[in-house]
């Protein structure tokens, strides 16, 4: 019998796993660092070193101090709490709200759909930082309003996503089957439509959390973010950015990198999930 011929390879999916694992690990590390920050540094995140501002890295201050004389390393660690917290919470709220909207709009259709979608349009057409300031003014200052901002900015996308999905699921015969088995509208939505419409959301959410962090950083840069001296990467970057040109890299490069890595973590995770989902579809 003649020798065997090998045709191509089926590596698809392996890289997805790599992405997912890497992303998860990154996030896990950052999260742990944030949680156990106090064990990793002697300084408090907003504790001021009377001995001076903008101290270069060295003993005592592994990453030096910033313009306020606060320990960069300590802030770097603690910042994870706010950043991850706000981003994740914000996206979570967005997912819930958006999904609910999309579900109702998509399933009921008709004028309900039209109205809801127009509302979504309005929100989506609204520039982020104006929403941010508005929400800040309405909800009041603090992390709460930032979560609200992130949610308000992202919810519309989910509403669309879920709606589109629902509109296809709605036509599937298992929904028809459920309806004809006498299930109530809510029952159908809850037990059949919802669970089968969430796949894209699962994929997008992590990516979104990453972008949420960038939005957060942007808001801090505009002075609409967390209030000083709270430790938050975006705020640290914008406070330190003037130092870069002065060769004082330590105030803003580390937070910049950490933010990058953290967002990257989310992106990798999302990318991985997406790849997996696509591989499934084929």
């Amino acid at each position, binding site marked *: 019998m003649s020798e065997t011929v090998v045709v191509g390879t089926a590596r698809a999916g392996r890289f997805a796993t790599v992405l997912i694992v890497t992303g998860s690990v990154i996030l896990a590390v950052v999260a742990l660092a944030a949680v156990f920050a106090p064990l990793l540094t002697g300084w408090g995140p907003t504790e001021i070193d*009377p001995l001076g*501002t903008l101290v270069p890295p060295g003993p005592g201050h592994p990453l030096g101090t910033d313009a306020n004389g606060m320990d960069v390393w300590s802030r770097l660690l603690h910042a994870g709490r706010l950043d991850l917290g706000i981003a994740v919470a914000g996206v979570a709220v967005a997912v819930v709200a958006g999904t609910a909207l999309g579900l109702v709009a998509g399933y009921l259709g008709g004028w309900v759909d039209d109205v809801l979608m127009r509302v979504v349009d309005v929100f989506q057409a609204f520039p982020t930082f104006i929403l941010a300031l508005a929400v800040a003014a309405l909800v009041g*200052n603090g992390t709460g309003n930032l979560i609200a901002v992130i949610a308000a900015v992202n919810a519309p996308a989910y509403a669309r996503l879920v709606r589109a999905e629902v509109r296809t699921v709605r036509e599937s015969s298992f929904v028809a089957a459920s309806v004809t088995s006498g299930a109530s509208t809510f029952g159908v939505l809850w037990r059949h439509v919802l669970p089968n419409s969430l796949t894209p959301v699962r994929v997008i959410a992590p990516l979104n959390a990453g972008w949420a962090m960038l939005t957060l950083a942007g808001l801090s840069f505009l*002075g609409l973010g967390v*209030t*000083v001296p709270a430790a938050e990467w975006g705020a640290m970057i*914008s*406070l330190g950015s003037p130092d870069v040109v002065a060769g004082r890299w330590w105030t803003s490069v580390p937070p910049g990198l950490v933010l990058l890595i953290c967002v990257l973590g989310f992106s990798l995770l999302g990318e991985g999930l997406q790849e997996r989902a696509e591989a499934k579809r084929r």
Partner: protein
Amino acid sequence: MLQLGGGVALLLATGCAAGSKPQGANAPSGTAPAAASSLRIAVSSYLSSWDQDFVGFDLTALMLYKNVYPYLIDYGVTDVNGAQILDTTNITPTFAESFTPSADQKVWTLKLRKGVKFASGNELKAADVKWSKDRAFAAQANVAGVYRVIGLTEPDQVKVVDDYTVEFTQAFPSALTPQIQAISLYVFDSVEARKHATDADPWAKEWFAKNPPTGGYFNVEKATQGQEIVLAANTGYPGPDPAKTPTIRISVVPAASNQRLQLQNGDIDIALGVSKRDVADLKKAPGVKVVSAPSNQQVTLQMSVTTAPFDDVNVRKALAYAVPYEQIIANIYGGDARPAKSPVPLDMPGYDERGYPYTYDLDKAKAALAAAGKPSVSSELVFEADNEEQQQLAVLVQSEARKAGIELTLAPLDPATLAERRQKRSVPLQITSGQLWVNDVEYMLATSLVKGANLNYSNYSNPEIEKIYEESHTTVDAAARGELWTKVQEILAADVPWVVVCQPNFNLPVRENVAGWVQPMDGLARLRFLG
């Protein structure tokens, strides 16, 4: 933090400034005249409007006004140990020929210089002065407000005698008249203006909002909205010290670090918007020099004496003891500021440290708090969201005050909100930084320490102070005034409506070839001296 630039630096720029950078950067300089054909200046923001009467109070605008409006009288220049400084005590006629009082100091006569021309070719005449002042009164904005201090409230108090003579009749004599007029006597080209006036818009504000005024030391050659303004020296100006530099190019560069880079690369000659941090470095940078001089800009913490917890004088004292003065000067101003020991600024006639006990002393702070019968108090600390300097200060004060038992929550506010809150007089504790345009205690009282004074954010009122203020109107003798001011400072030291943090020096990073910088006491650069 994002710099918006622009902001309010009225008579006393109590840091209503949205961007304190331009202000912080104006500084006196060693004089070494060297003519350059053109200069490039970077500012943080474009001016909001060309019309000084109606709208637009940002420092870029105010600075430009000083150079493009014909100000009939202005401060003279004196040399204080090597630094050229505007002398607020010496008011000299510039576009005018003379400005003289009657015997009773109530009627002031303004004589105009002949042959002063606007860009339109029209000559500057008494009619223009009259029209401009009527416009100011109609505007009911700044100048109208200032004039109140010297008893000018009605248009008909300003009379045209002949083409070159105008009379100002005040309700009462005032020691402040020359200085007030120095900042108010700017003139529009009324002939040109009338062409653009309509019934709906009798004062042609539509037109002036868009079109730069003319006839000053410089004329605006080209203005690119939001980007750049090119000034050309007004060669037709017949008076003393005309503009030295034929063209000055003012470009808008919001990012401080961006300005710094361009200055170092020699793409700009003067950076009006670099951060305190950068100044320190630029001192060492090649090709760049930092002109610096003491100034009378004051950084203070103003407490509302009518709002808890600061309605208790002991709490106010506690805070005054809890502020780490030296650390602030060292960390935030890089040592480039003078400790102030009185609400009255250093260099102001009558400054006196006697009876001002407050230094950084946490024990005393705690004691004071105990005396107030409160183990700990809490309050909000308001400051300008986009003012890095104030933000650092707030952070520092917060951390120290906490040690003394005063819990401060930081409240950075955007310009609009700040203005509103201040106007409502509802801010328990706020950071203010600014300087008096009129270097006189009476003026300081008038604007910020007597009952109902517009800048009296402390809602402070003390019968004795009121009495002294009344007295000062008519007291003209310097020595006598000095007595009063000593008294004032004792009272204020006891009542502590303000904690005076320090008096930072002016620092202005410029290219080495820049010369002729004159330190403006009002914080508004006079570009005509630059060479």
